[in-house]
């Protein structure tokens, strides 16, 4: 009941926004043009129609596929190296201390400035976008795993050692699951950033992908095309997020209060 109520409100807010947008971009209120000039703001129906058309005609699939491929590669490579480095540094504090200032420096760098460099290095194809997404994903996962391994409960650790576990067993039964929790809590953000990296990369120079489509529409003042691209991006993000949540639910069943919200129906 409560959940339905919430859903009703969520849908309501969306509809209200679309209605306002529709009214103010189509009604002239006696003036020469509507308050939201469709040339600059488009209209919700146009955007939906355009989006529908691009799916129906099939021309968007190629771009969507490219963007998703870049996202998946950036996420996969970024997350796995992030996990590896997070573990390595957490278990070797001296190494972590030496690299600490450099990691902070690299992480502070705005990634957009790297995009042109990556294009020089990796060309205009997918790999320059993957590289950009990688730099975003890597640090998120790295910091989370690093934190997770270092903040393993000392009592759980002492207990495991008193049970006679060797380093390998400690890794498998204590460090790894602990780090995994932290990794998963960062996963939503990491996937989002992988997508951001891909789209921004495409936006700055590419021949395919959603970012390229948006950029293309912008360059001919096609606001409907821009909004349509954004709508598709938003749909992709929501689908990925739902999938992530499902994976997380399965892997983190042991976590307290994890599905407390789902149980309160």
């Amino acid at each position: 009941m409560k959940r339905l109520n919430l859903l009703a409100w969520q849908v309501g807010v969306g509809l209200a926004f679309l209605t306002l947008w529709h009214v103010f971009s189509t009604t002239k209120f006696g003036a020469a043009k509507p308050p939201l000039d469709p040339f600059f703001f488009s209209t919700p129906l146009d955007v939906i129609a355009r989006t529908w058309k691009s799916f129906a005609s099939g021309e968007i699939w190629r771009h969507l596929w490219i963007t998703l491929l870049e996202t998946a590669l950036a996420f996969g490579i970024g997350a796995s190296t992030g996990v590896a480095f997070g573990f390595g540094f957490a278990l070797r504090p001296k190494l972590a201390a030496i690299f600490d200032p450099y990691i902070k420096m690299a992480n502070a760098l705005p990634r957009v400035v790297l995009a042109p460099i990556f294009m020089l290095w990796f060309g205009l194809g997918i790999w320059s976008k993957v590289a950009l997404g990688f730099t975003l994903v890597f640090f998120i996962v790295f910091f989370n795993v690093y934190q997770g391994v270092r903040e393993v409960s000392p009592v759980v650790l002492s207990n495991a050692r008193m049970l006679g576990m060797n380093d390998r067993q400690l890794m498998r039964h204590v460090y790894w699951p602990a780090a995994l929790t932290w990794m998963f809590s960062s996963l939503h953000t990491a996937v989002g950033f992988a997508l951001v990296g891909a789209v921004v990369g495409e936006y700055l120079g590419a021949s395919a992908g959603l970012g390229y489509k948006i950029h293309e529409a912008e360059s001919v003042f096609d606001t409907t095309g821009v909004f349509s691209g954004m709508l598709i991006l938003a749909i992709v993000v929501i689908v990925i997020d739902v999938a992530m949540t499902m994976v997380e639910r399965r892997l983190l069943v042991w976590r307290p209060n994890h599905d407390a919200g789902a149980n309160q129906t």
Partner: protein
Amino acid sequence: MAAALSAIGVDSVAPARQAVGLEGLAIAFALGGGGVYRAVEQIDLSVSDGEFVAIVGPTGCGKSTLLNAAAGLLKPAEGRVSIYGGPLAGLNRRAGYLFQQDALMPWKTALQNVAVALEPQGVPSGEAQERARAWLAKVGLSAFADRYPHMLSGGQRKRVALAQMLIRNPEILLMDEPFGPLDAQTRQIMGNLLLDLWAADRKAVMFVTHDLEEAIALSDRVVVMSAGPAARIVGDYRVPLARPRDIADIRLDKVFHEIQREIWATLKVEVQKAYAQGEGRA
């Protein structure tokens, strides 16, 4: 009767093989400001095979550090720890440790938590699961095998931890206020469960608690520590109560009260000292 209860010297009685021996033990911690905090000093304590020794003392007197030294989790600043006659190097592989805080792996079910304790001994996982199931039954948790720790009550988690410790069949049991966080009734139930399990094969036990009644009800011997810093052993009492015992009933026994009065006379002084220090510090 009262004569039998009189304080005895640590070394005067050594009927069985010595399981844990602490000699001239001192434990110190480096303080943040560069100083050194001496938690305990001049500790001589011998726990025989099959003996249940309770250690009581005011809060913060360093009872737990004694256990950690016997477990090999802490290196003493001075003195020797010997386990079955041999000096202890590294972790004490012959001991099981029951912690005060939750020490179960939260990402494993009750069954997995107990079964994993057999992995270091190289028991195949199928057999480990079977034996873990049997142990869960012994601690009355058969129906909860597939629950994760956060789905269990505090008392149930302690039962799992108990099974996890005992399934390895350690020769020495070290327990650090294991039932401290539980409510009074659950403590009694857990105490009886512990005594039942212990009676089956009588391991050497070092049981730290701040609850004198619990200490007397469970143990063969109660060791009293002074207030810290530099806490020492200030009393060592035998508990001549017959076994098997029921923790709830034994508290009504006349002998129980005599022992309690006698030990409390020593303990009270230390508790007041610790309290006064706490006031001074605050």
